[in-house]
Structure formats: C-alpha cells, structure tokens
C-alpha cells in the first residue's frame, strides 16, 4: 500500500514537471517572439516594413511591433536628418576649435572648365533630405552615388555657361541657385525621393598655378584705388586752399578800395576846406602856407648853401666839401 502510494506520488510529480517545462517553453517562446518583434523608431526616422518582400506600411517614431522570423523586414530611413555631400574637399572631423580637412587632392571634382574656356576650382556642398522613403528605397540603387554624379554634372553645366570672373566673383549665388534647380529636376526625373535643401559654393578659386596672377590683379586694383585716392587727396588739399586765398585777395582788394575812396574823400574835403579859407584871404594864406612849408622842409635838410645869385663857381666848393668828409 505504502509502496503504491509512493509510486503514484512520484508519477504525479513527474507529470507536474512535464507540465511546468511546457509552460516555461511557452513563455520563453512568447518572449522570443515579442523580443524579436519589438523595435523602436527614433524621432528623426520612419520605419519601412516589407512583408515577404512586399511593402506594407511605414511606421512613425515610437515602440512598434513586427512579425519576426524574416516575415516582416524593417528598414529605418532618416527622413528628418539633413545630409551633406562635399565636393572638392572632405571634412575629416568637426572639432570644437578647428575643423580638420582631408589633405588629399580632390581637384578632379573641383576643377571645371568655364564658359570662356578657362579653368576654375569650385568647392561646394549640397544639403539634402529624404522626403519620400519609399522612392528612396525602391527606385534607385546607390542613391548617394547617383546624387553625387548628378550634382557634378549639374554644377559643371552651370559653370560651363559662365565666365571665370562670374564663377569666382560676380555671380556665385546665381550659380548655386541654378545648380540647385537643375539638380532637383534630375532627382525628380529619377524619382530618388530626395529633396535638395541647399547648394552652397564654398571656396571658388582660380587653379593654383594661376593664383599669383589673380592676386596681382587684386593688388593692381588696390593700387589703382590708392593712386586715385592720392590724387583726390591732393585735389581736396589744394582746391579749398586756393578758394580761401582767392577770397583773401578779394577781401584785400575791397580793403584797398575802401581805403582809397576814404583817403580821396579825406584829401578832397581837406583841400576844399583849406581852399574856402584861402579864398577869403588869398595872398596872406598863400604866403603863410609857403613859408610854413619851407620852414618845415629846411629844418630837415642836412646842409643848405645860400648863394648869391651873382656868385658863380660854387661847384668846386661843393666838391671840396665832399672830399673832406
């Protein structure tokens, strides 16, 4: 009895264990399904789901579930992110203080013929976004390579229609703008699902061997300005001074005029006054005036010889006097 009971208990214990293992297996299986089926979509991306290769839907950011075991295939596409492609140079590392650029030569990308059959080195960037993840994934293989090729041909098409002066200085923005339009059109023709946000010309320079000559032009331009400025400076110094001097001469003339007229008036008035007195006693006045003048004059004189009218031979006397002194 006791033996049977024991046997029975052992059997039920084994039964229980079997059931427990089944439950555990079931739970583990479920966990695996959930674990491999769950995925997150980051805020800047969307998830594209293909079931047995066929596109079914696009999922927005958040925690999502797909059927695991190769039934649902997930591809995440960064639709909010702005991508950048560089032409003619490569940024190696964006540092906090200085950005490091690759030292390699990318002149193949940057060198282009201008419309006047010269050569310019054009470095530029494009910024783009994926605006249609379905087109992006399913229409074109190697979208980035396609974009780069198209960007180069578009830029060269535009640069080829501008002179080297226009490319380097005059119409940089117009060139970037036209390139953007042409490039966007191509991308739409190919249904790449990309949208160009920006085309930006960076360093646009003449080729290295020509740069000294271009610099010389700049120097000559500055020299021209300097020479002209010096002339202007001289002009600005001389002309106002001359104007001032001219005014001075005129003022002096005015002064002379006033002086002259006043003096004339004074002299005339004096004459008239004296004359009207003289008219009252002509002889006396005349005598008086004569004598007064003689008196004054003769006082100043160094020597005076008073000679009798009949006396002659005065000259030897004078000579003697001169020799003695």
């Amino acid at each position: 009895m006791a033996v049977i009971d024991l046997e029975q208990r052992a059997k039920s214990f084994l039964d229980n264990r079997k059931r427990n293992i089944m439950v555990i297996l079931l739970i583990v299986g479920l966990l695996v399904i959930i674990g491999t089926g769950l995925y997150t979509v980051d805020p800047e991306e969307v998830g594209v789901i293909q079931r047995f290769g066929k596109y079914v839907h696009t999922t927005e950011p958040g925690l999502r579930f797909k059927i695991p075991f190769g039934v649902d295939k997930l591809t995440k596409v960064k639709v909010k992110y702005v991508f950048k492609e560089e032409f003619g140079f490569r940024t190696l590392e964006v540092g906090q203080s200085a950005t490091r650029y690759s030292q390699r030569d990318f002149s193949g990308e940057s060198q282009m013929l201008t419309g006047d059959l010269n050569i310019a080195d054009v470095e530029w960037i494009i910024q783009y976004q994926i605006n249609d993840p379905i087109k992006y994934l399913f229409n074109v293989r190697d979208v980035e390579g396609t974009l780069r090729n198209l960007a180069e041909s578009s830029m060269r098409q535009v640069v080829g229609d501008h002179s080297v002066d226009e490319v380097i200085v005059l119409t940089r923005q117009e060139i970037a703008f036209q390139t953007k339009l042409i490039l966007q059109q191509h991308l739409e023709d190919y249904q790449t699902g990309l949208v160009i946000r920006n085309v930006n010309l960076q360093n646009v320079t003449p080729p290295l061997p020509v740069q000294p000559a271009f610099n010389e032009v700049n120097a000559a331009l500055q020299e021209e300005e300097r020479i002209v400025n010096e002339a202007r400076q001289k002009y600005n110094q001389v002309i106002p001074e001359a104007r001032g001097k001219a005014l001075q001469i005129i003022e002096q003339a005015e002064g002379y005029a006033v002086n002259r007229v006043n003096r004339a008036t004074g002299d005339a008035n004096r004459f008239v006054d004296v004359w009207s007195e003289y008219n009252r006693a002509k002889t006396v006045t005349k005598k008086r005036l004569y004598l007064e003048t003689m008196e004054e004059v003769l006082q100043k004189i160094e020597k005076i010889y008073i000679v009798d009218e009949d006396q002659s031979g005065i000259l030897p006397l004078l000579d003697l006097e001169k020799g003695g002194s």
Partner: protein
Amino acid sequence: MKQTLLIILGVILLIVLVNAFYIIDETEQAIITQFGEPIGGARTEAGIFLKTPFIQKVHYLEKRILKWDGEQNQIPTQDKKFIWVDTFARWRIVDPLLFYQSVRSEIFAQSRLDDIIDGVTRDIITLNTLIEIVRDTDRELSFAIDFEADYYEEIQSEIKVGRRAIADSIFSVAKPLIEQFGIELIDVQVKRVNYIEDVRKQVYDRMSSERKKIADRYRSSGHGRAAEIIGRMERELQQIESEAYRTSQEIMGRADAEATGIYASAYNRDPGFFEFMRTLEAYKRTINDQNIMIMTTDSDFYKLMKKSGN
C-alpha cells in the same frame, strides 16, 4: 523506430515546402527557369510566391535604376583640342528575360554599356567643337573688365548645340543599341570635361598672362584717373586764382576811379591853388635829411637876406 521515420519524413516535407516558396523584394524582379528553360514571363511584383520545388529555379535581377559610371576618355574635339570626357548614365533592366539570356549578369551588362556608350561618346564629341561641349546656352558672358582676349572669337561664337544637347544626342544614339540586352537606357550625362595635362598648362599660362594684362589695365587706369583729377585740379586752380585776380583788380579799379573822380571834382574848383598846395605837399614829402640844398638869395624864401622890404 516508427517515431524516427515520422521525424525524417516531416523534415523532408518541410524542406520541400520551404523550397516551394520564393520571395521577391520591392527592389528586385525575377525569372523562373526549369532545367535552364525560362518558364512564364518576368515576375516584377514584390511578395511571396509558389513554384515547383527543386525543379524550378529563381533568378533575381535588380528592378531599381542602376548607374553606369564610365572611365574618363581622352577624345579630340572637332577643333582638334584634346580633352578628358567623363560620362555617366542611368539604366534599368526592362526585359529581365532578354537581359538574362543576352548578358546574364550586371557585370557583363556594365561592360556592354562601356563598349557602347564610350564609343558613341567618342563619335559625338569628335563632331563638336570644345566651346559647344563646355557651354550649355548662348547666354552672354560678363567679365570683371572689358577685355579683348586673343581667343575672343572662339568664346563669343554662337552656341548651336550646347552640353546638354550633346549629352542628349549621345543618349539617343546609344539607347537603341542597348535595347537588345533588355536594358532601357534612361539618360547619359557628361560629368566632367577637362583639358589634358599639356593643354591645361597652356591654359594656365594664358590665364596668367591675361590676368597680368588686366592688372596692367587697372594700374594704368589708376594713373589715368589720377591724371584726370590732377588736371581738373589745375584747371580749377587757374580759374580760382584768375577769377580772384580779376575781381580784385575790378574792385581796386572802381575804387581808383571813384577816388580820381573825388579828387578831380575837388581840385577842379581851383587848379592853381591845387598846384600850389600839392607842390608844397610834395616838398614836405620828398625833401629829407639826406638832401643838400643850394638856394640863391633870389628865391622867395631868402630874398630878404639880400634886400629887405619891397
């Protein structure tokens, strides 16, 4: 024993079942062959499909647009200029069956494209002048300075074709040649055009000498403008000075005239008295302590010395 047999049978069944299905991705298309013989048309729809297991084989081909990126070629233009031309093209497998039969794989397709597009590019480029290959429209170019370049005629010549049209004609000649491989050529673009090394050096020299001429032009224009300013300055200077002289002389002249009038109207009242007065005045002014005077006793002043009275 029986159980083991069941398990083996189940596994075989599973393998067969798995082999009966095939999946086509959105980026792919496929053809089915049975002992090497294609069965049915191309499968371009994505999804999961059934086939006869083991007997039928699936060959996957790309459905998306593919790129062909040519090597750059040295080609002489119609005006005998040697240039490097680098083209690229887009293509797509439109007839997978024909494609599979004629070229079998993408690698072979690429080499067919190399042959055809490179050849056509060479043909078309040699038919056109360099300026037609570089320029796109006949938009008028502008320059930093009016400059008569030696090759002015060449760059001012009317653009009859232009780069895009040349690329288009490469495309339209190449397209039918490629159709036989089940490939649709979508477009051909000229990616890069550049001078060969020797010519490039010549162009650099020409650009340098051109710039030097422009620099000279700027410098001499500076001297010219400066001379103009100095000339204007000298003219204005002469004008200002002479005008001042004229005005001052006129002012003084008027004053002199006025003074003369004033004197005349006063002295005319008695010319004899004026002469008398003015003479006395002149004596006062002209005779000084340097003078020696000899006077006779006959003069009015000394006459009393000889004879008083009377």
